[in-house]
């Protein structure tokens, strides 16, 4: 299978020109994400998961190594790599739900007849059709994240990058959203890189899970295959076994097993 995303020896050093203020977020990151794969990046807080995602998105350029998308180096953000951000501040809060969702095609000069039907389809897909004339501030957290997902999907990217998109949601809404994402991914089969610090969420969603080492100088520590059949169930023995294995790997990184943020 060909690699949709390939990273080799990637280093990310945040520096403002003074050595004492520089921070080495990533060092020696090697990663291959396959075409059509759902890949989860899991790791303790501050391990550089978001930095890694920003590199794939093209928001920042690596200080070392290569990031290639289908053999082409990443130079800038691109409509083929859609990003769902952790914070709902990424929405255009002066535009309605409908205007947010159709923003990409409208900016790219897609004829209205085409973007209109695509945006409508996405609004229905994420269940926001009845709320399309509302403003983001009139929506709940879960609905705002669905606007973000619809906005990205309306642009038909090949690769979907999701940065802890459900971290701020309550447990119930998060569960609903995870089901939604699986459903959408089943229907569209795009390559997805999904960042999370929630072990159960990663097992529920991913084909493979990459665990990152603790910063500074994070890299991919280990990759786990999730061979559970879909649709998945949470409380099966296999699920719990994998949960424990991942949990141990993360604890070994975080170095303090009592401070885990996740519970099953």
């Amino acid at each position, binding site marked *: 299978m060909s690699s949709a995303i390939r990273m080799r020896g990637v280093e990310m050093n945040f520096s403002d020109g003074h050595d004492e203020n520089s921070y080495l977020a990533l060092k020696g990151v090697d990663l291959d994400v396959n075409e059509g794969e759902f890949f989860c990046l899991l790791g303790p807080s501050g391990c550089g998961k978001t930095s890694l995602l920003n590199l794939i*998105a093209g928001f920042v350029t690596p200080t070392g190594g290569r990031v290639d998308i289908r053999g082409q180096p990443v130079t800038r953000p691109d409509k083929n790599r859609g990003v769902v*951000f952790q914070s709902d501040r990424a929405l*255009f809060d*002066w535009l309605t739900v409908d205007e947010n969702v159709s*923003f990409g095609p409208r*900016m790219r000069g897609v004829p209205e007849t085409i973007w209109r039907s695509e945006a409508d389809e996405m609004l229905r897909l994420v*269940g926001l059709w009845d709320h399309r004339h509302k403003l983001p501030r009139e929506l709940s957290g879960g609905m705002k994240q669905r606007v973000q997902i619809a906005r990205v999907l309306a*642009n038909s990217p090949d690769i979907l990058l999701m940065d802890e998109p459900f971290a701020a949601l309550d447990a119930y809404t998060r569960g*609903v959203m995870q089901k939604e994402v699986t459903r959408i991914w089943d229907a569209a089969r795009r390559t997805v890189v999904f960042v999370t610090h929630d072990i159960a969420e990663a097992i529920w969603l991913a084909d493979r899970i990459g665990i990152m080492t603790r910063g500074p100088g994070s890299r991919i520590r280990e990759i786990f295959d999730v061979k559970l059949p879909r649709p998945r169930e949470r409380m099966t023995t296999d699920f719990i076994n994998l949960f424990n294995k991942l949990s141990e790997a993360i604890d070994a990184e975080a170095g303090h097993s009592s401070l885990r943020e996740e519970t099953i």
Partner: protein
Amino acid sequence: MIDANKANDLLLPRPVSTNQKSGRRGMTAVAVLTALFVWTLAATLTSPFFLPSPLSVGNAIVDLTVNGTLPNAVAISYFRILVGWAVGCTVAIPLALFAGRITLVRQLVEPFFNFFRFVPPIALLGVAILWFGIGEGSKIAIIIYTSLFTVFMNTMAGATTVDESPSRAALCLGATKRQVLWRVVLPATVPAILVGMRVGMGFSFMSVVAAEMIAANEGVGFLIYNARLFLKTANAFAGILTLGAMGLLADYVFRLLARKLFPKHALPF
């Protein structure tokens, strides 16, 4: 398919009830009536030269309105404020946007703004008269100076602190850099610009009165100062109350227009 309504409607903001609204109005009425009562009481204990009663101030307002002095003063003061404020905004907003987005421009402009921040408008009145004459020019120049700083500072602060994530989102949705500037950064800065304009208008009211007291023979500031010279204390109070009403009205109209022009923005007023 999930049930969007059931899952999420719990978190929607609740509208302010009419009860709460009328309750607030009621409190305002109580406060105003109490103030008038205390004022009347205080006025009966002192002389009308020291503190005229609300009634005599009301009479003064009627007299000054009938003989045309007050409407004329209001018109001329409003004119000075609006012209000066509009010019100040027109210059300050684009400059602040540039300074907020381009570091080089900010580094060039900011030292001057930081320096002149401590020079009050009235300190420049003498120079303004020398340069722009005793007529409208000097007064309007002072208002321009006043609003320029307030609007510039607020807009620049807004433009520099605009959240990066909407811009990033726009870029990976296929927007060009120019589109990001016009369709994302500018709309995101609108609330900060409007706050700056509103504060700038408030300061313009202060400046125009100071300027009119020192160097004018028209306007509400002149009316107040002149009344004091002739010990017509009631007239001075009439002018002071008129100023407050003028400010309230201007602010109300500004907020109304802002909401009309930017109905979808979350405005902090």
